[in-house]
């Protein structure tokens, strides 16, 4: 965990209620699947946001406006300073996926899979992606996943774009392992449909975000785990629904 201050380089809408914020600052040690915990002016608790992409000195967050905190985030302009705790959470383990991992993201769960895709590619794997959204106006990053060279499927629940239905309706492809992030009902559907082992990234209301307050504990087959510190990524084998 590092306590650091980022500077907003850009912050703009990329889909309905969805913003992409690019920040400059210390990104040392950040891994795909981890999150940063942001201190927003006027709010007491920090806001945990998953890391979408990161490079030396640069961090990209893609977030959905769902409440007052994210509304305030969306109003931040270039040059704004943001206090952040970084390097939080366990992140995805890329030592297991075999040749052809499948990335399955739903809505605000899509962003962390982008950094993961880059890492898997760098390790010589051939990932594919299924991105699920409610409707066409909410679709984002399809082109970015394609630009990385991933075979990319998009599903919308109302059928306004791509495959009509849910991410699970696009899962009849060949894969050796999977990684998924999205709302819990989607994660559960992926769990039931999946034919291989995989990793799931969970979301929970957090107090501290670094394992001290026990605010986000969940039950697993291997004991109680703090979503913030022992997660947010859990393996298929340990999940208790």
């Amino acid at each position, binding site marked *: 965990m590092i306590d650091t201050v980022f500077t907003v380089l850009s912050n703009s809408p990329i889909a309905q209620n969805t913003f992409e914020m690019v920040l400059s600052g210390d990104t040392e040690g950040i891994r795909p699947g981890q999150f940063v915990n942001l201190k927003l002016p006027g709010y*007491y*608790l920090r806001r945990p946001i998953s890391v979408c992409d990161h490079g030396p000195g640069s961090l990209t967050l893609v977030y959905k406006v769902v409440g007052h905190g994210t509304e305030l985030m969306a109003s931040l302009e270039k040059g704004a300073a943001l206090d952040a705790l970084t390097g939080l959470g366990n992140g995805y383990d890329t030592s297991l996926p075999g040749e052809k991992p499948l990335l399955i993201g739903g809505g605000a769960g899509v962003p962390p899979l982008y950094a993961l895709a880059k890492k898997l590619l760098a390790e010589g794997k051939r990932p594919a992606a299924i991105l699920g959204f409610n409707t066409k106006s909410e679709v984002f990053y399809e082109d970015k996943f394609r630009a990385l060279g991933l075979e990319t499927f998009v599903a919308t629940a109302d059928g306004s774009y791509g495959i009509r239905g849910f991410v699970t309706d696009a899962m009849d492809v060949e894969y050796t392992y999977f990684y998924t992030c999205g709302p819990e009902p989607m994660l559960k559907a992926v769990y039931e449909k999946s034919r291989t082992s995989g990793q799931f990234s969970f979301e929970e209301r957090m107090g501290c975000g670094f*394992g*001290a*307050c026990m605010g986000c504990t969940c039950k697993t087959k291997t004991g109680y785990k703090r979503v913030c*510190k022992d997660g947010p990524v859990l393996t298929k084998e340990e999940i208790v629904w």
Partner: protein
Amino acid sequence: MVNTSVTLSGLTLSNPVIPASGTFGYGYEFAEIYDINCLGSFSFKGTTREPRFGNEPPRIAEAPSGMLNAVGLQNPGIDKVISEELPKLRKVFHKPVVANISGFSIDEYVECCGRIDKEEGVGLVEVNISCPNVHNGGMSFGTSPESAAQVTRAVKAVTRKPVYMKLSPNVTDIAAIARACEDAGADGISLINTLMGMRIDLKRRAPVIRNVTGGLSGPAVFPVALRMVWQVYEAVNIPIIGMGGITTAEDVMEMMLAGAAAVEVGAANLVDPFASKKIVEALPAVMEKYHIENLTDIIGGAHHG
């Protein structure tokens, strides 16, 4: 050179800053980012006889200048705390620790306090009779002078180390409860635990926290905590550990002027993991600013006549 040391029932602390139970785990998360031996002590996560999962999530909500929690005493249970957590804790913290004990019956308080009392490295026992987030236990012992005295008496009979009773602010007369604890033999009083509150999610038209209510902490409660420490200081002659929303070294001084012999820092640790360390480091300069040589000189210093 200012002197920041304070004494609690014969236990000398290099400074009065103690991270509060439930905001510091067993110390490891913080020991990863700074040397926690700079702290006066710390109060470890509330421990019960049996391991507890606690409440179903969500357990946390935002509040103006504060937060609500309804963790519900998640802890590994006294056996594991003694066999696993304390040995690990001793590797990262070399000073006497405050052992925070909770319970659902007098028997449970007695068993846990009696066992933790024998542990080397425990400086004092803080008995939580004020958890607002569990049912049929916790706070129900701390809301009447009679039951508070009953727990105090029972625990005192099985302990040698100083016993501090941690009180709830969710009562009509905090002074009467503190006095009852003192009369029953308590060595000191810790206050305040969190204030019961709630939030409602407009979209779902339902409470944000699954437990419906949670405990409010953070700067929002500081004036309430200060008032209660003030009242208890006027009511008892035993030392007080004051807590509730402390965020700065100035808050520490206010709390001590109201009557606290030491302080606990809670919610602040969760939003700034370095908060307790920063307060310790800021204390000497603030003391100098207000011409204080010995911190103990100001305890209760705002009470005149």
